[in-house]
């Protein structure tokens, strides 16, 4: 059994591993896909202290190497929950079980989908959740962005330099995004706004060819596009822990700045926790706080 079992190898989880190892505790980090988490998708980071312009990949690699050099162990698997037993916690995955005296949940968030039929199958075949990742594959073609927040507006601005026409579709009549960015939309001749409009269907054979729109008066139409970029927010990746500890109505793990959850010995770190500011630096901070609390908990056993 490890002293500290961390679920999720993003910035929060890897930072927790560093702190727990420096406190001489044994650490296992369980990761579902690959190290680094969400920051991997960021081409350049400009708001992390002392590392202006570092790429998300370089940041993630440095963080992973630091944790590994300090002796953190790693395993791949998707946690399906946890059980409290024998003075610790057991985390099952599809083909193994992992045990820790304390548990840090750092599973973060994932992109919210529109919930349309075919959406999942078309992801990577015309449907995308990352304009900076996939925009280059739509050079000179028509694309649509759906959403009304900062991500949607900045995605539309980014794509306008690559795509032929960018349709920005938003169900409300005004944007929640930064007014400065919204003002820029009007200066881009190839960005066309479709307000009061929802995306209600996807048209595709092998890959996306059009989206079905439902306008303000309930009329539907088809808009031919090669790509649809979905930017309608994030949802916490905490489904596996439903019923095991307290979640807020949106699914975030209820925990204060001390990262303590409703279950003693289980801590929450990073974007999946109830908090105001979801940023790289606060994810790292949570990792430090959660690990320190976990170490204290283990010492008290």
């Amino acid at each position: 059994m490890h002293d500290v079992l961390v679920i999720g190898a993003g910035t929060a989880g890897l930072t927790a591993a560093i702190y727990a190892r420096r406190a001489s505790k044994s650490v296992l980090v369980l990761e579902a896909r690959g190290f680094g988490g969400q920051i991997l998708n960021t081409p350049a980071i400009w708001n992390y202290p002392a590392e202006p312009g570092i790429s998300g990949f370089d940041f993630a690699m440095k963080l992973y190497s630091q944790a590994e050099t300090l002796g953190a162990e790693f395993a791949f698997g998707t946690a399906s929950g946890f059980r409290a037993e024998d003075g610790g916690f057991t985390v099952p995955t599809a083909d193994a079980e992992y045990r820790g005296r304390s548990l840090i949940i750092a599973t973060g968030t994932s992109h919210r989908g529109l919930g349309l039929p075919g959406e999942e199958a078309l992801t990577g075949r015309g449907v995308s959740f990352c304009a900076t990742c996939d925009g280059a594959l739509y050079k000179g073609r028509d694309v649509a962005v759906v959403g009304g927040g900062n991500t949607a507006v900045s995605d539309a601005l980014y794509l306008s330099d690559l795509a032929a026409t960018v349709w920005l579709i938003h169900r409300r009549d005004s944007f929640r995004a930064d007014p400065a960015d919204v003002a820029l939309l009007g200066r881009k001749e190839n960005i066309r706004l479709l307000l009061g409009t929802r995306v209600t269907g996807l048209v595709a054979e092998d890959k996306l060819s059009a989206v079905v729109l439902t306008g303000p008066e309930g009329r539907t139409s088809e808009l031919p596009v090669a790509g649809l970029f979905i930017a309608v927010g994030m949802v916490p990746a905490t489904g596996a822990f439903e019923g095991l500890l307290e979640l807020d109505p949106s699914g975030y793990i209820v925990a204060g700045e001390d990262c303590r959850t409703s279950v003693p010995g289980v801590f929450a770190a990073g974007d999946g926790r109830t908090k105001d500011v979801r940023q790289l630096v606060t994810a790292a901070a949570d990792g430090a706080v959660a690990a320190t609390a976990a170490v204290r908990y283990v010492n008290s056993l």
Partner: protein
Amino acid sequence: MSVVKVNSGNFAEEVLGSDRTVLVDFNADWCGPCRMLAPMLEKVAAAHPEAKFAAVNIDDEPELAVRYGISSIPCLIAFRGGSEIRRSVGLIPPDAIAALIKG
């Protein structure tokens, strides 16, 4: 076996004409998840000599990206006998990579 770089000039021979199952990793230098996937792909390649592993840089080989309808990377496509048998988009763990070349 390590991962071999392929291009439009040798794709037919190296991938489509191979007598083994070939897993092709469509990637780009600017794609963080692709760079994180690469070392995992190397490890899977070393453990599976029965298959062949190839990589296509989509910036250098836009024709191949269009031909295979790549619209999101990393994209792994498994070929057998010249035809696509499986496809996966996004960062996936080693077991899931290995599952693409099975059976």
